[in-house]
């Protein structure tokens, strides 16, 4: 039995996923997670755990239970169909001469 993703009997505080932005304009990227009783404390814990050495200019914390994730059993239907259709990949097409390939 669970409340959100928080198993009953688990004495840990709720889990929060942490996203850090390394510079203005860059995307917020997932850095890890922290436990905290509420959003403000999650922000502080994330600051202490993930940004102490100047790694970030901005932080997001998101309740882990607010994230809907694909499950491992979805991996086949979700991600594999593309592999046998080579024309879906940009590499399928010849690059015209003179076009810079990154």
């Amino acid at each position, binding site marked *: 039995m669970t409340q959100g993703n928080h198993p009953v009997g688990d004495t840990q505080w709720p889990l929060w996923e942490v996203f850090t932005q390394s510079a203005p304009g860059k995307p917020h990227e997932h850095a890890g997670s922290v*436990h905290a009783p509420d959003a403000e404390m999650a922000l502080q814990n994330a600051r202490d755990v993930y940004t102490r050495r100047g790694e970030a200019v901005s932080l997001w914390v998101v309740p882990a239970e607010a994230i809907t994730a694909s499950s491992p059993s979805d991996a086949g239907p979700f991600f594999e169909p593309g592999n046998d259709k080579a024309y879906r990949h940009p590499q399928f097409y010849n690059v015209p001469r003179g076009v810079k390939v990154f």
Partner: protein
Amino acid sequence: MDANAALVDFLLGLGDDRLVLGHRLSEWCGHAPILEEDIALTNISLDLIGQANLFLSLAGDLEGKGRDADALAYFRIDREFLNHPLVELPKGDFAFTIMRQFLFDAFGYHLLQALAESGHQGLRGIAGKSAKETAYHLRHSAEWVVRLGDGTDESHARAQSALDEAWRWTGALFVSTPAEAALTKSRVAPDLGGLEPVWRASVNEVIQNSTLELPEAKPPAGKGYRRGDHTEHLGTLLAEMQSLARAHPGATW
């Protein structure tokens, strides 16, 4: 006491407060109630010891006797430490650690803000840097005070008893020595007594949100208290903190 000696003592006081409190916080390393808080308290401890390093280094330079921050931290005896008794009290339970930290952080925040405008350039630089760190420390401890006070019956009771106990020791924070009064005159340091009302306003706001009650009595202003007076607890703290440096002088690792 000449102006330089007064400044050296003032800097020693600033450094010693942070060194001793940093050491007290470090006692939680590996023992805090939850991993994230363990890291937070250790971070704050390291910030405070870093600030102490800066203040003590400057004190040593100005003193001109060739003592660096390590010599001042590890080779003075308790009577030579100029920290306030508040910071040397044992860490107690988590509520006491947080409450003492909050009362000191609020004091440190206002003091460092004022010192960031000091007429002394070296002091101004250190204070400006330390003030930013201290703003974060205050945010951390204030949020905890609210959560402990407005938490469960047990956390409320423990936080109230921590406040009652720590409160008695805050009066000494605002007592200027004659030497410090001279520094105020020469615009090196703020008037400590003048910081009390702003400190109290900051403290009041958080305590009100926490549903705790400030003790009615104004904290005793440390009647007869002089810098260098200590409780019995400083000696044992120093014995532990200084043991390695005294057993292996000059050791590096």
